[in-house]
């Protein structure tokens, strides 16, 4: 298995270069919300290990929300974030793209602090990486190459089935499997299609994964005496805050939501970027870290096969702290419209959504972290829209394919390569064709 990872370069923009940067980023699109994958600055289409990428200017409109806690508005740098999801290590990808698109990256990042003509760009990008507190991968080990091969396989089978519909009608799934196996073997032999075998999992990744699998619960157990002692006070404080925390959920103005909407629904998948300030205080910070650690742990070891709890439409997602953990950004790539995305969250994993986002200033009130909150649909949707940022450039390596498509294509291939399926499994497999 070749595991996926993410990278994010986060750098402050030189204020007087901001508008030049915006213009430059716009040249990477054919139209707002629609990237030119072969653009001259960063030809994404030539990156064979890149699933998703985006450039986004983290321009937070909600900095004044801290006033609800009697705090003065902070001045933070305006950041440019360049992030993506890749096969293999993030650092390797930065080296690769640093060579592939050095001029383009240099032009873009020259609008940021710390880049001069003689800067070693790859080193600079590595040193400006911002780690995720929690991240989610829809299907661990599914590489870009595999996605494309399996999509090509499905198209090929689709054409074959169309051409041979009459002779295959009435045949049993086992006969169909045998016929298709022969056909695909021929096609592979003649080089018309390629189905690469899965890579072996890198040893160091396996070790780190194992260490994480055991280490995190172990740490928790070690800390448990402390947790038990602190819990009553902690919970009391938290419950108290939950009852009094202000809600900031006013409707966004139509121009803002129109601008966001203009960037959406150009593909079956959409990008989502949202940021805001965390509620002040130690209790909230601890809660955020605890909950996100749990999310990260579950995403890494439990929800590795197409489902984040009940949600099946997210390709990649991550949470990143900014500015000494005072602010947080959430990034995701999901299928469908933002409306159905928000409905999915409310209806299917409201509890998880609440536990994470209730630590952001202004979130609709929760109780016991997981109840309430997003159940107030109107407030929740307005809250989220208020915090959503326009994403300047967004790339997806496989337009037109949803996470469900990828799962189906994977199931088709698996069934084709299997020699030990029960009749029931074969029937279900044939139904996917």
């Amino acid at each position, binding site marked *: 298995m070749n595991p996926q990872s993410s990278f994010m370069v986060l750098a402050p923009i030189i204020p007087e270069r901001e508008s030049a940067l915006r213009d430059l980023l716009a040249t990477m699109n054919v139209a707002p919300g629609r990237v030119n994958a072969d653009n001259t600055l960063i030809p994404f289409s030539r990156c064979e290990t890149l699933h998703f990428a985006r450039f986004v200017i983290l321009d937070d409109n909600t900095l004044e929300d801290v006033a609800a806690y009697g705090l003065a508005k902070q001045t933070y740098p305006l950041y440019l974030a360049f992030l993506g999801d890749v096969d293999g290590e993030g650092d390797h990808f930065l080296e690769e793209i640093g060579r592939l698109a050095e001029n383009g990256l240099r032009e873009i990042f020259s609008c940021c602090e710390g880049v001069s003509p003689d800067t070693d760009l790859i080193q600079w990008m590595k040193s400006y990486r911002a780690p995720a507190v929690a991240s989610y991968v829809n299907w661990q080990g599914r590489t870009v190459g595999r996605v494309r091969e399996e999509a090509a396989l499905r198209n090929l089978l*689709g054409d074959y089935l169309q051409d041979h*519909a009459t002779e295959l009608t009435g045949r049993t799934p086992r006969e169909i499997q045998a016929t298709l196996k022969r056909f695909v073997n021929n096609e592979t032999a003649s080089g018309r299609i390629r189905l690469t075998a899965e890579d072996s999992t890198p040893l160091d990744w396996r070790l780190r994964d194992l260490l994480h699998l055991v280490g995190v619960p172990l740490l928790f157990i070690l800390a448990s005496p402390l947790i038990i002692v602190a819990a009553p006070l902690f919970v009391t404080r938290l419950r108290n805050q939950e009852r009094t925390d202000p809600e900031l959920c006013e409707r966004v103005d139509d121009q803002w939501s129109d601008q966001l909407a*203009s960037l959406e629904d*150009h593909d079956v998948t959409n990008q989502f970027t949202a940021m805001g300030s965390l509620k002040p205080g130690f209790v909230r910070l601890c809660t955020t870290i605890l909950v996100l650690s749990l999310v990260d742990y579950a995403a890494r070891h439990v929800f590795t096969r197409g489902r984040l709890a009940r949600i099946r439409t997210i390709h990649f997602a991550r949470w990143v702290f900014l500015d000494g953990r005072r602010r947080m950004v959430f990034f995701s790539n999901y299928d469908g419209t933002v409306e159905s995305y928000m409905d999915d969250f409310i209806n299917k994993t409201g509890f998880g959504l609440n536990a994470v986002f209730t630590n952001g200033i202004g979130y609709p009130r929760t109780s016991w972290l997981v109840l309430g909150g997003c*159940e107030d649909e109107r407030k929740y949707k307005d809250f989220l829209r208020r915090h959503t940022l326009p994403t300047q450039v967004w790339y997806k390596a496989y337009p037109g394919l949803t996470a469900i498509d990828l799962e189906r294509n994977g199931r088709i291939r698996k069934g084709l390569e299997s020699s030990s399926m029960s009749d029931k499994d074969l029937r*279900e497999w044939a139904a996917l*064709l």
Partner: protein
Amino acid sequence: MGSSAVSSAVDYNDLQGLVRFGYKSMKEASYVLIRIRDAEKARAWLGSAPVTTAVEMNPPPSTALQVAFTAAGLEALGIPRSVIAGFSAEFVGGMTEDSRTRRLGDVNSNSPSEWAWGTGNRLPHLVAMFFAEPGLLHGFIQSTKGASWDQAFEELRTLTTENLDGVEPFGFADGISQPGIDWNEQRDHKAAQVTYTNVAALGEFLLGYRNEYNKYTDRPLLDADADSAGLLPAQDAPEKKDLGRNGTYMVMRDLRQDVRAFWQFIDRQSGGNVEEREKLGAALVGRTRAGDPLVPVLGPKNEFTFERDQGGARCPFGAHVHRANPRNADYPLHPTGLARLLTIIGFGPREFRDDLMSPVRFHRVLRRGREYGPELLPTDALEPGPDDEPSRGLHFICLNANISRQFEFLQNAWMMNTKFSGLSGESDPLLGDRESVPGCPATDGFTIPVDGGLPRRLSGVPQFVTVRGGAYFFLPSIRALHYFVKAGSSGPQ
């Protein structure tokens, strides 16, 4: 009935009747799309218009009038912008806003630039809907319009309707599936729905009441003043006046149906075999022409779910009625107790099609549309049409409290979606526009699962339905209508 149920009982006197009734016995109807010429005269006409309420009458009335406004219409009437801004963003922005047309599939041949009405100076300010028993419509319209009508309004278009006796133009029985409304708010909205129910919260169809989330939907809440004195207070903010209460949003779309293309395509696919033709037509729609569902029913024609048809071999996943109402509940497989907890945290059933869809109770609409154009029987539809072929179709009308979560979700995520229910390369067999999407060149397929075999896949399904017009309206309560008449005249002119 608890005290809360009593306090929220609906005053049918305050509702326009369309929310409660389809006016089936009034077989004639015309929808007059109008723009306001003179705001003062328009308000005067509206102030005395005999708008029919939802009170049940015995004998039932033989005529009915309903009125609904677009956001532009409210502005033309003189309603302050600050008041209009309190309505939902979809209503204020309108059906033809750029990004919205992309979501609704109103692009290319369905694009508003091709519409007969609904955009630019052909966007109606209001629609006056006239219903009457046979023979009475013309007289009713004339007498209702009265002397000042032509000074008050400019008629944009009159949408006529045809009574096809419960059958839509393609020849299928229509209007069978309608949600039941929990008028007395007796259902516990807080409880999860483990089994599919056809009854939905009052607040899904009427503003000012609790919806399926046990919350309220966007509508203007006004400060108490002379103009708003006649309005009811908001249930969730008693110090405010609720302009939306007992009103709702009305979506109207003019859908032209190519009946000949539909039956001729099906006939070709069936090799001219009459029985096959009926079967294939039923597979696309998800019901027989008589309206019988393709899966076993538990009682009347509308009491069924698709649960016993996991593979879709009886009713294809992509069939029109399956897309329009997947009849699912909050979780797959009715889990209770521990099983439900496990499902919630992500350890529920894991088959390919399990748990793909949002629970339908958040996406129901009340359909109130009517057909237009002369009847064309399937057998006649196989013949080539005359040069002066009359247009046929549906004046689609639906009522819902949250346009984006109800109508728009249905249209986008279920009807036009080429990825609905794990499918790929096909949209609704009736409504789909067959336009390619990035990465998916072909969306003109249709998949018919076959038990224990390869699914049958149709390709080259033509576009049968073209959007010819549409707009988002607000169907006000009687009190809100009186407020409009009053506030319009006191607002800035």
